[in-house]
């Protein structure tokens, strides 16, 4: 039984009890019961429904991409055209336009990021899954750490460790007096805040989106059970419309967050390949 389903059961139980009020979904939403648990090298692995959803999303997008580019034709098929459109977006609009002339080597990584995030985000509204693996902090964190390592390595390669640190700590055009303020902020920003916000932005969007959807969906069910009391016949449809609206809003979030994560990665890489700001 999924966590949402158990929350639904508790809502219905409350309704049949006709005693307590509406039980809002909790953070337990994101900790569904484990399917399998094992331990390797002292690391505990807990395979849950969300883990499986992540596997399915990744496998599905992989399958689509491989099938879409199998036997490519000069005049593209529909799936090929779709795939090429997505790749062109990453290559030209994100890679070339944001990173600049030295964008070529980073395009594959950006593409992998974009499609991985897109597929995993999309699970938040696909029926029967309806929760995105990205609403667990682990996955966005993994991606953010990779981006963090990448832009730091590229920066050090291009500017040398000293040059890179100097560029970050002593931004050009800042009066020496203000360096007392600017240097700590810049160092903090570059090495701690950047990866953290990158991960949290994606995670929080999907987390909040899922919570909103669950609240309005369960609310609809709860209010339907209370028809006849306290204008529930008005608020149940309202709650349902809100859930519908939030679902469409979620579509926007799914695409936008995948895009934003990739664009920000490209921006950081742009800073890494270009001399000076």
């Amino acid at each position, binding site marked *: 039984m999924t966590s949402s389903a158990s929350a639904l059961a508790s809502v219905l139980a409350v309704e049949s009890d006709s005693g307590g009020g509406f039980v809002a979904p909790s953070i337990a939403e994101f900790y569904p019961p484990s399917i399998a648990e094992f331990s390797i090298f002292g690391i505990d692995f807990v395979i849950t429904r969300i883990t499986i959803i992540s596997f399915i999303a990744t496998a599905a997008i992989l399958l689509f*991409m491989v099938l879409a580019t199998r036997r490519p034709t000069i005049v593209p098929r529909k799936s090929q055209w779709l795939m090429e459109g997505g790749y062109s977006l990453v290559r030209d609009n994100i890679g070339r336009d944001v990173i600049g002339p030295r964008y070529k080597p980073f395009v594959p990584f950006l593409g992998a990021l974009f499609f991985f995030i897109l597929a995993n985000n999309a699970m938040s509204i696909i029926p029967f899954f309806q929760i995105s693996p990205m609403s667990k902090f682990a996955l966005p964190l993994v991606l953010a750490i990779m981006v963090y390592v990448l832009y730091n390595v590229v920066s050090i390669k291009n500017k040398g460790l000293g040059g890179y640190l100097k560029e970050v700590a002593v931004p050009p055009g800042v009066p020496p007096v203000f360096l007392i303020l600017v240097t700590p902020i810049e160092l903090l920003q570059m090495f701690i805040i950047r990866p953290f916000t990158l991960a949290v932005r994606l995670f929080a969007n999907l987390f909040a989106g899922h919570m909103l959807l669950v609240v309005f969906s369960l609310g609809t069910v709860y209010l339907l059970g209370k028809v006849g009391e306290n204008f529930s016949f008005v608020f149940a449809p309202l709650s349902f419309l809100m859930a519908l609206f939030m679902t469409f809003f979620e579509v926007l979030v799914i695409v936008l967050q995948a895009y934003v994560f990739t664009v920000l990665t490209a921006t950081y890489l742009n800073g890494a390949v270009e001399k000076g700001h």
Partner: protein
Amino acid sequence: MDLFAAESQNPLIPPVGEIVVGTITFAILAFVVIKFVFPIIEKTFQERRNAIEGGIERAEAAQAEAKAALEQYRAQLAEARTEAAQIRDAARAEGQQILEELRTQAQEESARIVARGEEQLAASRQQVVNELRGQIGSMAVTLAGRVVGESLEDDARRRGTVDRFLDELDAMSSSTQGDR
């Protein structure tokens, strides 16, 4: 995992296991996509670009060819025009020449005809003169015989007389011819 136990979870502190699984999942996707999917797309783009550029090149070649053909056609046309003009001029000149020749020929012919006519006239005249000479002789003798009433029997005498008379006539006629 118990629901109430989950309440104490901090969503910003992910379990290490999830991080490892997430890394592996992403790594698999990234590997396949970077190794197989994106190179194919890049190759397709390149092929498409080549196809389009090839098409443009072919079109340019065809255009150049058409232009060359047009130039050639124009040159040939101009050449043909010049040639036609030359032929016309030559024909005109030839016609003029033929006309001149014909005129000369006609003049010669007419001159010849006139000359021949004159010749014939002279011959006829000579003939007439010769005939007349014979006839006039015998007639004159006959006439004279009748007038005199005697026959000039003597042939020799008679001939001598006639000849003398004719010579006189000749002299007269030649003097008149000289007058002409």
